[in-house]
């Protein structure tokens, strides 16, 4: 079997719009991707996921809890490259909108923040781990993503330049 790019797709606090867009990009690209990409981990695509030894982790969403922070650090350790996908992962917003709440709104949500052990501030991925590349946009800019995905396939030697 030819060498494939070992990919994981993950999401944290977000609306998963880029995950949906990724599923839609598959409509036009799945024939090529199924030959060149091993989707080792993608909860939206399969139940049996292997999150270890990834070439690339695509990560959507902002980080809003200690639990998510720990998980993100694990993903970083398990991946050669980590890519921030979409606005929440790249800038924190709009998931980080509660960081900007006034005193009244902050007080209103405080019991929920405590109850679910959420972090005081919602942050983009780069505040927690090294991010190798970013695809901004809400949802992600699909042209930027397609170019990056293609470049990664070439970089990891699964496709010729």
């Amino acid at each position, binding site marked *: 079997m030819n060498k494939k790019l070992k990919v994981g797709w993950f999401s*944290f606090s977000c609306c998963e719009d880029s995950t949906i867009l990724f599923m*839609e990009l598959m409509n036009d690209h799945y024939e090529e991707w199924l030959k060149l990409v091993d989707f080792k981990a993608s909860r939206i695509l399969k139940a049996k996921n292997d999150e270890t030894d990834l070439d690339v982790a695509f990560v959507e969403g902002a980080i809003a809890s200690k639990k998510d922070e720990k998980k993100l650090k694990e993903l970083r350790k398990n991946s050669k490259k980590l890519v921030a996908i979409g606005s929440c992962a790249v800038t924190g917003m709009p998931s980080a909108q509660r960081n900007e709440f006034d005193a009244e709104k902050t007080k209103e949500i405080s019991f929920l923040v405590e109850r679910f052990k959420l972090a005081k501030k919602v942050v983009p991925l780069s505040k927690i781990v090294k991010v190798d590349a970013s695809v901004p946009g809400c949802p992600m800019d699909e042209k930027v993503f397609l170019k990056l995905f293609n470049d990664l396939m070439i970089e990891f030697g699964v496709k010729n330049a």
Partner: protein
Amino acid sequence: MHNCDITIENISKTEGHAGLDVKVRKGVVKDVRFKILENKRFYTQAIRGKNFLAAPQLMSRICGTCSIAHLLCCIESIENALEVKESEQTKLLKTLAMNGLMIRDHSLHLYMFSLPDVIGKDSILDFDEKNSFEHELLHDCFSVKGAGNNLTKLIAGRSVHAPFPSVGGFNKLPDPKLFPEMVKELKAQREKVLKLIDIYFKCDFDFSRKTNFVAITNKDYDFRQGNLCSSTGVCVPEGKMEDHLEHVVLPYSQASGYKFEGKEFMVGALSRMNLNKQSLNKETKKDVSKYLKKFPSNNIYDNNLAQAIEVLHCIDSSISILESFEPKPEPKPVITPKKSTGIGVIEAPRGTLFYKVELDEKGIIKKGKVVVPTGQNQINIEKDVAVIVQKNLDETKESIQFEIEKLIRAYDPCMSCAAHFLKINWL
């Protein structure tokens, strides 16, 4: 199993993150907790203080997969508050946008989430290219889903967080020169969808129990207008929905549960088909009469069949509109902000979606309330899981877990929607 605890950390092949805890003692299921694990993003608070014109695009960000439903429902609530009348052309454009959403979103669920359960594979990516049946289904998946995606892109500008629909009409109109090509693409999906309908018709998954089905009903299977009716015979104008809902606090979940008229209930495609199948598109009814006999159905797995039939309805409805429609620029209605309250109710892919907004005299949102389908289905999901675990107690934990996930997937829950804005009043 006499005593056991089953914990599913992260249910796969659904939209968003959810888990489940089941407690079995002395051979009896004692407790089921369907836990929506998405971190709250507090949209109900975030919308406060925003100008009414900015609100729909913000609320669209609640959910990537059904963003069109949030966008249009938020617009409807604001237009009702400000007494903005929708033009006939805008109505048609919104119907097309909703049709595109339903085709794309149902196809994602039917082909990518549920079909692997039917075929006995973990993922659609595992479908065997050398097996002609599986090979065809893999190609059908991306073709049908693609047609829905392209329809919404054509009409609303993008299939996720669509830029064209706004309060008062569409910011940009689609180019009618592109309609014949779209019609051709939609027509090419009919046979594929009929094959999918037949697969779900023949699927022998069964979990039947009586429950109360609730959906918007009308004369043309429209997803946006009509009365809210239940299988117990209650029928109220959609604006009165709130009077019949009871909020139920679920302390372990980052979302809320609901009862309709004091009882657990179900919303979604199965409810719509049970209550309104006679209003489907004529062309659709001609081709699916055999399958429609299954409804009304109490089998939760028929939600998949109902969704598949809805995909065909949306294709036929869109073909019929696009073949005789030429959108033209029209004057936008004059919108005057005023102190007001408005309600929007539409059928999102997973069921009835409710918006209520309160505006001040400058058009600033003072309060927003949103009730999403998955929240309404949550209590039913828990009760059904309890029954399915009880029935399967002699099986292995792995097999019980598979049955639970399969059942939950049939509900097609959307955790992004459910977790991100409901204000919970903890008791």
